[in-house]
């Protein structure tokens, strides 16, 4: 959680660039999606630590409460959902690609928007699932949010889908039909995003309604 003086507010799906600068002037910059719905000057980021990363180990292990951080944002006006949206929405997340989609889910709830939201969340196993408790609670409210977990390695007993990768069957059974003309947001590692986008188009979804965001360990340096 960050408190950002003068934060202008953001749109669900946007990210910030975080820059770390060493004493010798070397700096490294990475983009992180905002997980929270717009709420004043508070900002929540969810950071996945990469053991060989340059920025994430600092953010997750060294940075303490109350320490300042250099960030730029909000940025990115493409991969966004605005809370006054009226079209149904299909979200497809791979791993920590859930983060910007969670901001959309939270923004929808905050605005009491009842437009149908369907989330397909591909994750390694239950222990790796982000926001699990919150998603259960948000589904329980019954305001039109549906969540399907697709476990790629280990599924809990009673899981509706067999362990496996994203597929045409999963999209057909757990997504929204192309006839509903949903807006589609796909976020995850590059391979996941490209596979999923291809399956969605093959299933008949309008390519112009599909927005994708790829993430990976790389980032800008200067």
């Amino acid at each position, binding site marked *: 959680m960050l408190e950002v003086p003068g934060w202008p507010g953001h749109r669900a799906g946007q*990210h*910030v*660039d975080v820059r770390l600068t060493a004493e010798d002037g070397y700096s490294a*910059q990475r*983009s992180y999606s905002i997980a929270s719905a717009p709420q004043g000057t508070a900002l929540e980021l969810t950071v996945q630590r990469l053991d060989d990363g340059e920025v994430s180990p600092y953010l997750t292990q060294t940075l303490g409460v109350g320490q300042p951080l250099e960030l*730029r*944002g909000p*940025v*990115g*006006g*493409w*991969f966004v959902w605005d809370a006054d949206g009226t079209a149904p929405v299909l979200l497809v997340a791979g791993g920590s690609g859930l983060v910007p989609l969670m901001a959309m889910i939270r923004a929808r709830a905050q605005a009491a928007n009842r437009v149908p939201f369907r989330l397909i969340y591909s994750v390694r196993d239950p222990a790796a699932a982000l926001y699990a408790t919150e998603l259960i609670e948000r589904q329980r409210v019954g305001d039109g949010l549906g969540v399907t977990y697709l476990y790629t390695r280990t599924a809990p007993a009673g899981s509706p889908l067999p362990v496996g990768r994203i597929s045409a069957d999963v999209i057909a059974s757990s997504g929204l039909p192309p006839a509903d003309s949903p807006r589609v947001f796909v976020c995850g590692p*590059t*391979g996941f995003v490209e596979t999923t986008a291809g399956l969605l188009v093959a299933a008949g979804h309008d390519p112009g309604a599909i*927005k*994708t*965001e*790829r*993430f*990976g360990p*790389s*980032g*800008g340096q*200067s």
Partner: protein
Amino acid sequence: MTSHLDGNMLAGTLGELFTVDVTTAIGRCASCGTSGAIAQAHVYPDAPGMVARCPACSEVVLRLVRGSDRAWLDLRGLTCLQLTIPGS
């Protein structure tokens, strides 16, 4: 080719240079003529600078190098950028 990300990640750096969000602009590839949002270009961030390629034909559409006090922007891979002007 090594793994790529996409044009969404260019928003911060391009935002230093332009008053409008260039990642939402529609660019036309000079090589194959395909039009699409800059956000959906394939971006290779580990070259010296960031290299954005057309998702259809893989030709370079944009290169962006950010130095400590200046930036270099090469747009010769685009024949046209269609920008939405806020507030109009």
